[in-house]
């Protein structure tokens, strides 16, 4: 609104303008597919973080993230105790909590993390197919791979952030708690790198496996159950086989061991597998711990790569099929 | 003729929600269109008539008897629901045979074949329902309601998803059944299709009965709505003057060669018009009521 014109006021004439009410065409510019991918990822990222969602989702999400923070705290405490009593000394490269970050990822690599993936990934992948929204997305100026890239960006972004936040807090606490924070930082730059890589590795690896399972069904419930079920089953079978056979091939059955072992080697920790000596033929023998040495890391790298590739293939196949219908 | 269906002061509540509120009417053989906006209570009313729901108060009678008390009445009744959920793992034929068996028909297989033929689905009857298109599912549901050779047929949106040729076929079939003396109630959102099947309408809104009867008569009963009539005539100005002079019209609108007039008393206007035109040497080429169709009747009554 512009101030009343002086002359017209002098002439005793009030002014009024009626603007055109009808439809306005868009005259601005159109941005490219990168913008589309980022905005898709942005919307889904917010959704995954529970922004603008109902209290049930928020509660589930924040409880799981809270537990991860507690795990980080425990890793901090355990490491502090270890250092005080000196247990780290002789078996520095043996004991997981000797490196607190390794300890954190080691403890986080389990049911809580899987639940988090099961909460987020089916929600972002299944609903679009269940409610038919996928066909609207694909009728936009993006391709199927753009759509999947947006989803991947949101999922990996949120999940690596959720994993890295406690780890980075832990790092900050250690650095600030050290006699000379600057020196601690300089001495542990390697740990910082390993930590970032581990977070990313976990996020990508589990995201692809979960994504492959989620792409098999439209139901978020089935997908979530499938993700947690498969990972738990793999771990159970893996550790049972290990307990009975004491052979390291059992570590390849447990899907979480693949990333676990890669992560340990990133932190420079040689993490052998401790299992119980269970042998039925000799019931009187006392149950003693048995230590099994894992494969060299490249074996796990290859196995993880195979799992990731297989998952990507499943996702690609399922979505291709969805589009062609 | 005694009514086939009698609805007496029927109310249906679901907890706090009143879906049908104190509705009474009676239907004789023939086709009636059940109309109303979404959420008006059409489906509830049909289910009440089909005996699938019991009224919270009031009663529904068939041939003077209560449906719930006389289960054998169900065999004289066909109902075609709106939902599209069917047993996907069966073929159309198996589904109909099963339904015919449930009706207690003597020869389920023969009844199934006959119904399939009626809806022109015989050729695809052997295929699994899972692969049926929407239009085919619709016809299968319809066939299912025809199985007992019913005297009363209640159809909830039977044309949805059908393509133009199938619609035409189903409309013809419904008309034939109506002429054969079946009492048919059909709910639909597509009013000009209802108009082709039924003169009699049952209009409900907010669970209440708004209008019942021949829709032309209903239109005429709306005194507060002047009829708009379009005339194409050789000398529109002259006709306009003649009509105004005789106070047959309350408003006149001239555009191009067309004359649109508002009339209050339809009988007086239409009664005088032919003579007026013939005697004054005018030539009428078109006479259309602009708001006489079911569409307008619905609009006037529901808004």
């Amino acid at each position, binding site marked *: 609104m512009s101030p009343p014109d002086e002359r017209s006021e002098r002439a005793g004439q009030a002014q009024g303008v009626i603007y055109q009410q*009808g*439809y306005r*065409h868009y005259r*601005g510019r*159109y*941005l*490219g597919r990168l*913008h*589309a991918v980022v*905005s898709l990822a942005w*919307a889904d990222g917010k959704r995954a973080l529970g922004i603008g969602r*109902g209290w049930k989702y928020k509660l589930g999400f924040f409880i799981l993230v809270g537990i991860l923070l507690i795990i980080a705290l425990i890793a901090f405490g355990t490491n502090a105790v270890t250092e005080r009593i000196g247990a780290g000394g002789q078996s520095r490269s043996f004991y997981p909590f000797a490196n607190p970050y390794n300890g954190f990822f080691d403890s986080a690599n389990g049911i809580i993390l899987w639940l988090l993936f099961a909460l987020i990934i089916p929600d972002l992948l299944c*609903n*679009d197919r269940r409610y*038919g*929204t996928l*066909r*609207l997305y*694909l*009728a*936009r*100026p*993006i391709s199927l791979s753009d759509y999947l890239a947006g989803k991947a960006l949101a999922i990996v972004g949120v999940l690596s952030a959720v994993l890295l936040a406690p780890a980075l807090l832990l790092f900050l606490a250690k650095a600030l708690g050290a006699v000379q924070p600057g020196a601690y930082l300089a001495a542990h730059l390697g740990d910082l790198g390993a930590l970032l890589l581990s977070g990313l590795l976990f996020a990508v690896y589990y995201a692809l496996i979960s994504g492959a399972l989620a792409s098999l069904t439209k139901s978020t419930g089935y997908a979530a159950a499938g993700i947690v079920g498969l990972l738990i089953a793999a771990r159970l079978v893996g550790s049972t086989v290990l307990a009975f056979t004491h052979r390291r091939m059992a570590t390849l059955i447990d899907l979480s061991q693949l990333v676990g072992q890669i992560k340990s080697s990133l932190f420079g920790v040689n993490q052998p597998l401790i299992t119980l000596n269970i042998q039925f033929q000799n019931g009187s023998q006392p149950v003693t711990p048995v230590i099994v040495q894992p494969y060299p890391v490249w074996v796990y790298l290859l196995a993880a790569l195979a799992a990731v590739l297989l998952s990507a293939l499943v996702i690609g196949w399922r979505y291709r099929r969805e589009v*062609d219908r | 003729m005694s009514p086939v269906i009698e609805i007496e002061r029927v109310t249906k509540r679901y907890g706090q929600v009143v879906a049908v509120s104190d509705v009474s009417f009676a239907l004789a053989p023939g086709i009636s269109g059940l*109309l*109303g*906006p*979404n*959420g008006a209570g059409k489906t509830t009313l049909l289910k009440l008539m089909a005996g699938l729901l019991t009224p919270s108060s009031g009663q529904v009678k068939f041939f003077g008897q209560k449906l719930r008390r006389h289960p054998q009445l169900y065999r004289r009744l066909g109902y075609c629901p709106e939902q599209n959920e069917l047993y996907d793992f069966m073929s159309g034929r198996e589904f109909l045979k099963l339904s015919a068996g449930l009706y207690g028909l003597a020869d389920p297989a023969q009844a199934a074949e006959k119904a399939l033929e009626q809806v022109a689905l015989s050729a695809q009857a052997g295929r699994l329902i899972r692969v049926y*298109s*929407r*239009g085919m599912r619709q016809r299968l549901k319809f066939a299912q309601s025809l199985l007992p050779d019913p005297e009363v047929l209640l159809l909830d949106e039977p044309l*949805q*998803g059908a*393509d*133009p*040729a*199938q*619609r*035409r076929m189903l409309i013809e079939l419904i008309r034939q059944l109506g002429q054969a003396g079946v009492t048919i109630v059909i709910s639909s*959102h*597509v009013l000009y299709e209802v108009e082709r099947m039924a003169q009699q309408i049952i209009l409900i809104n907010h669970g209440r009965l708004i209008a019942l009867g021949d829709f032309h008569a209903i239109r005429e009963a709306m005194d507060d709505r002047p009829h708009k009539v379009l005339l194409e005539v050789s000398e529109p100005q002259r006709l306009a003057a003649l009509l105004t002079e005789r106070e047959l019209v309350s408003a006149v609108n001239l555009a191009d060669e067309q004359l649109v007039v508002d009339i209050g008393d339809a*009988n007086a206007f*239409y009664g005088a*018009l*032919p003579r007026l*035109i*013939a005697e004054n040497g005018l*030539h*009428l*080429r*078109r*006479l*259309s*009521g602009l708001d*006489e169709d079911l*569409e307008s009747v*619905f*609009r006037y009554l*529901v808004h």
Partner: protein
Amino acid sequence: MIQTRDLSKRYNGTVALDGVSLQVAPGSIGLLGENGAGKTTFIKLLLGLLQPSSGSARVLSLDVARQGRKLRRRVGYMPEDECLPPDISAMEFTARMGRLSGLPHEAALQRANDVLHLVGLGEGRYRPMGGLSSGMKQRAKLAQALVADPELVLLDEPTSGMDPSGREEMLQLIGEIRENLGISLLLSSHLLQDIERVCDQVIILSAGQVAAQGPLSQLLGQAARSVHLRLVGDVQAFRQALTQAGLSVHGSGMQLTVEGADDQVYDAIIEAAAQSGVQLRRLERASRSLEELFLALRKSEARR
């Protein structure tokens, strides 16, 4: 606006579209066909979502096989089936769809606001869409098709499941899109009267082929062959008067059809009505309806 040459699509073995060649000018185009005639496949091909098995198509001068993304920026699509996430508001969803079409963040919000008001969803736009009525959902679907200001919108059964007043409003809206917004549209529907109302051209598909295509007025033809009447009063006397005048009358009850549509026929009708005292409630030239055309094509198809 749309040109196709020998456009075909086969899905392992079955032929969905078989050598479709046509050329359509901007305007409002009705797409007709029986279930399974290939309408949905045709629409998907026009959007570049499917690759043609053979032949080619251009929409807005863009090749559908190679310039699909570019094309979809300028074309809006409203599918027939459910496609709205229930836990998101129409506002958020429409804006998101706008961004995916390339609108910057702010512009997308502003456009979403505009088009939601345009389609009559102004009030419910912040509510989760799962709670909207079916008519409101249809509006939300239309809004997302319009949000990026397309030059063409493809509407697949836009009035399906709507009640009479909802359908009326939707058709009005669609008419406005063409007339006031200047956006071309391709509308597929089973309700031929809907198409007759808003479309000026039609494409009729049958078994994957074009059965007829062109301006509606041309296809239906202007020539009338008879006159429809509705009467109140003594129909018997009226009928007799017409028959005596040498006209052939058929129909029953209050609705009659008189053969022929020249001036003498009209005058004879008025004369007969004046004499018999019957009330003439309707007198209309019977023009060929789209339904008749559709059914006639179908019969000739069946004979082939």
